[in-house]
């Protein structure tokens, strides 16, 4: 287990109750999707796990080198809904940023930046500025930046939601290939049943606001997922099952 959320409530300053009594376990090496309707608090869960917000009540427990309760800041990578790149910096400088903020020497950081850029297939674009890239390429830069610290836990907040379907399918496949190779733990927020089934080893279905986990589905699909899985009866069966859970959660 990497992180465990217990009975977490989150009420924002404006009175909006985003989460109520949320329980969630994130296991080492799994690909967990948080699935739920818009506004159910999925992104809030990620922000709390990343330490970008405080829980109103309940607790978040970490396991690992820092011991229970301490958040391993350096071990987390975050990919936002939008690419969130610095427009004034090149691809290279955007990916370098997390290492630069940690004060890593350039000769130590450069090979890691190069490796991350290669991982997302953007070699040759190191000197390009974000405005020169397509939406999918910007998102790849954002993923490369999250990977450059070699995180133990990768948090992804609907990263492909604004992309067209063809690009999204490609990035889904690439993400799965990277995950299989790198063995990180991924928590992926989505409101797409199909995407969650295709990507995940486990899906946590959330209720409408105030969000809590209403059920879980373990996806025992093939290890190497591809177009054959996407069109298989097994995939359809999982999608039907997850949709039913989502509908149940919506009814409360």
């Amino acid at each position, binding site marked *: 287990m990497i992180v465990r959320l217990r009975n977490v409530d989150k009420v924002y300053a404006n009175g909006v109750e985003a989460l109520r009594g949320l329980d969630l376990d994130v296991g080492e090496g799994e690909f967990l999707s948080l699935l739920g309707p818009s506004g159910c608090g999925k992104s809030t869960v990620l922000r709390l796990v990343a330490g970008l917000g405080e829980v109103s009540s309940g607790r978040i427990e970490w396991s690992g080198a820092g011991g229970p309760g301490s958040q391993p*800041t350096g071990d987390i990578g*975050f990919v936002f809904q939008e690419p969130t790149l*610095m427009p004034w910096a090149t691809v290279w400088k955007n990916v370098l940023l*997390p290492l630069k903020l940690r004060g890593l020497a350039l000769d130590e950081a450069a090979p890691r930046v190069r490796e991350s850029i290669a991982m997302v297939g953007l070699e040759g674009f190191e000197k390009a500025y974000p405005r020169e*890239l397509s939406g999918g390429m910007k998102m790849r830069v954002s993923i490369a930046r999250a990977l450059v610290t070699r995180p133990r836990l990768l948090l992804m907040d609907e990263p492909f939601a604004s992309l067209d379907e063809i690009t999204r399918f490609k990035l889904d496949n690439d993400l799965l290939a990277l995950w299989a190779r790198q063995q990180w733990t991924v928590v992926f927020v989505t409101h797409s049943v199909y995407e969650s089934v295709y990507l995940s080893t486990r899906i946590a279905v959330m209720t409408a606001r105030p969000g809590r986990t209403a059920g879980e589905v373990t996806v025992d699909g093939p290890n190497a997922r591809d177009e054959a899985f996407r069109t298989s009866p097994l995939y359809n069966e999982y999608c039907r099952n997850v949709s039913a859970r989502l509908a149940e959660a919506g009814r409360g």
Partner: protein
Amino acid sequence: MRDLEAAPVGRVAVRPWRWGVGRIARLVLPPAGVGFAGLVIWEAVVRLQQIPIYILPGPWLILKTLVKDWGTLYPSLLVTLAIAGAALLVATVAGVMIAIVFTQSRWIELSLFPYAVILQVTPIVAIAPLIIIWVKNIPIALLICAWLVAFFPIVSNTTLGLNSADHNLLNLFQLYGASRRQVFWHLRLPSAMPYFLGGLRISGGLALIGAVVAEFVAGTGGTQSGLAYRVLESGYTMQIPRMFAALFMITCTGVLIFVALTALSHLLLRTWHESAAEREG
């Protein structure tokens, strides 16, 4: 992740620093043509209507006067330019520093910003005589007047820019444990750059206006300085063509300051900001 979208989409979207003859001609010829036509009409009207030169001299006479009186006007231009340039420099340094102080705390901004507004809205012609009385050194007094007019756009725009950093990027910096100093240098300052440069362009013109107004006030009191004094002096002695020549020099100086600051803005933003980069297609 190779081969996906491998085509270099939008790879040539950034406008290179190219100022060919054709491009300059496209930018300069239309306004120059309009200006030339206006001068021709002006000259024709003056000649045909036989307007006396103490009412309205023609542009040709003004040009001849400019050449003839260059020895008097040029040193005055340097004085005005020095005051406007120094005021802009001080306004830039002080304006950015004030903006940085404002963004350190909402309370500081709330407490001090109204006074910056008060300084901005108080007519400079009303307080220039006081400043000239209080500050015995005339160039310093003129510099203060020009600075008072010029600093506000830089303070206002830079404060807005420093507060406009992308919230997700702020979250990202927080996630990676960035210090306040790192957030400032690597995020807030670059985010503020387009706003700052917009303010600088406005302040460039205002610094000149502030310098000229202050020179007028000082000149009315009998103190010689700059082009505005030449305008006053020419008016008193009915040398109207020289008055227009001095006025023409002030206008040209303002245009040159604007062009120089626009070029600086383009140079700094052309690789990444929408205001300076070329539209695709």
